[in-house]
C-alpha cells in the first residue's frame, strides 16, 4: 500500500467525518471507516480492521470523557457486560485471519443494516418513559441520569440481563472479527433487550467499546495488521470527529441524532453488502 502525503490528508478528513457520525449515533467510527478503507481506498480488510480497532479505542475514550462527565454511562453495567464482550473479542480476533474477505464484508454489511434498521425502528421512541423501575436487580445494575430535555432525573433498571449478556458476547466476536466497536450490537443488547434508556445505552456502549477493542488490538498488532502510517491519520481524524460529536450530542434530541445517521449508514451498508456478494457497483 502506497499512500501519498495528500492521500494522508484525505484519510484524515474522511476519518473525521466517520468519527463525528459514529459518536452521534452511539457507535464506533470503525463501522464507517472499515468499509470506506476497504472499498474506497482499497486497503486489505484485515489491515483496515487493524487501523479501525485502534481508532475505535480513540473514539470510545475521547467520547467517554464527555459521557462520564454528563453521568449517562453506567459503569457497573459496562464492567459486567465487558466480561462477555472481551471474551468474544479475543475469539473474533483469533479467527479473523482465517475468514475469507467476502464473508467479512458480508458480515460488515449485515451489522451496518442492523444498525440502520435499529435507528429507523426506534425513531419515534421516547427514552426513559418506559424504564421498568420495579424489576428485580440483584446485580445492582440500575441507575439514574438527568435528562436535559425533560428537566428531571430518570431512574432505570435493566430487564433480561442474561439475554443482554449473550448478545454482548456476539457483539464482542463481531468487534474482534471486523475491527469495529460493535456499538450498534451493544446498544441493541442494552436498549432493545435490557430496555435501558437510549442515552444510557449509547453512553455505556461508547464506554465499553474501548475496552472491547483493547481485547483484540494486541492480537492485531502481533499479527502485523496495525500499520502506523495508516492508523495515524485515521485515528487523529476519528478522534477529532468523536470529540466534536460528544459535545454536540447533549444538544440534540434522539430524532435529530438518528436522522443524520440513517441515510449515510444505509448507503454504506448497501455498498458493503453488494461488494460482499461480489457485485461491483
Amino acid at each position, binding site marked *: 500500500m502506497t499512500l501519498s502525503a495528500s492521500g494522508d490528508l484525505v484519510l484524515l478528513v474522511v476519518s473525521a467525518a466517520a468519527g463525528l457520525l459514529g459518536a452521534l449515533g452511539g457507535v464506533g467510527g470503525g463501522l464507517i471507516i472499515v468499509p470506506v478503507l476497504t472499498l474506497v481506498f482499497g486497503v486489505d480488510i484485515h489491515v483496515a480492521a487493524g487501523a479501525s480497532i485502534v481508532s475505535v479505542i480513540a473514539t470510545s475514550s475521547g467520547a467517554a470523557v464527555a459521557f*462520564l462527565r454528563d453521568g449517562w454511562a453506567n*459503569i*457497573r453495567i459496562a*464492567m459486567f457486560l465487558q466480561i462477555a464482550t472481551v471474551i468474544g473479542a479475543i475469539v473474533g480476533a483469533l479467527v479473523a485471519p482465517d475468514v475469507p474477505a467476502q464473508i467479512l464484508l458480508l458480515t460488515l454489511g449485515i451489522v451496518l443494516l442492523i444498525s440502520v434498521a435499529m435507528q429507523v425502528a426506534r425513531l419515534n421512541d421516547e427514552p426513559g418513559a418506559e424504564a421498568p423501575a420495579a424489576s428485580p436487580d440483584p446485580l445492582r445494575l440500575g441507575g439514574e441520569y438527568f435528562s436535559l430535555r425533560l428537566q428531571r432525573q430518570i431512574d432505570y433498571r435493566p430487564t433480561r440481563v442474561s439475554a443482554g449478556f449473550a448478545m454482548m458476547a456476539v457483539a464482542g466476536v463481531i468487534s474482534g472479527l471486523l475491527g469495529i466497536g460493535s456499538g450498534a450490537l451493544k446498544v441493541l443488547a442494552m436498549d432493545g433487550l435490557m430496555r435501558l434508556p437510549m442515552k444510557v445505552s449509547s453512553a455505556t456502549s461508547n464506554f465499553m467499546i474501548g475496552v472491547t477493542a483493547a481485547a483484540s488490538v*494486541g*492480537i492485531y498488532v502481533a499479527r*502485523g495488521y*496495525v500499520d*502506523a502510517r495508516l492508523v495515524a491519520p485515521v485515528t487523529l481524524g476519528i478522534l477529532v470527529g468523536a470529540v466534536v460529536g460528544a459535545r454536540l450530542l447533549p444538544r440534540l434530541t434522539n430524532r435529530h441524532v438518528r436522522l443524520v445517521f440513517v441515510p449515510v449508514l444505509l448507503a454504506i451498508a448497501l455498498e458493503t453488502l453488494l461488494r460482499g456478494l461480489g457485485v461491483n457497483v
Partner: protein
Amino acid sequence: MTDARLERLMSLVLAIGVIVSAVLITLGFAASFVVGWAGSLTGAALRAADATDFSGLLSRLADLQPLAFAQAGLVVLIATPVVRVAVTALGFWRERDALYAVITLAVLALLVASFVFVR
C-alpha cells in the same frame, strides 16, 4: 455515592491517555510530511522500518523517527482502556464493592492475557 468520584477519576485517566497519544501521533504525522514515514528528523541512517513492527521503539524514538512517534502514540492509546479498567478495579475495591472489584479484575485479567499469551 462515590460512583461520581470514580467517574471523575476515570474521566481523567481517559483524557490524559487520549491527549498524550494524540500529541504523539500528531507529532509523528506532521513530521512524516517533512522527512517521510521512512525518514528520521536527526538524519540518522535507518534500518528499513516496517510500519507494523513495534520493536525497538525507544531507540527509534531517540532517532526522532516520525513512525516511532506515531507508534508510541498508538501504544499509549492502546494502554489507556487497560489502565482505565485497573483504576476502576481499584475504585470498586476502595468502595468495598467486592462483587464489582472481582468482575473488573476478571476483565483486566482477560485483557492482560490477550496481550501476553496470544501471538
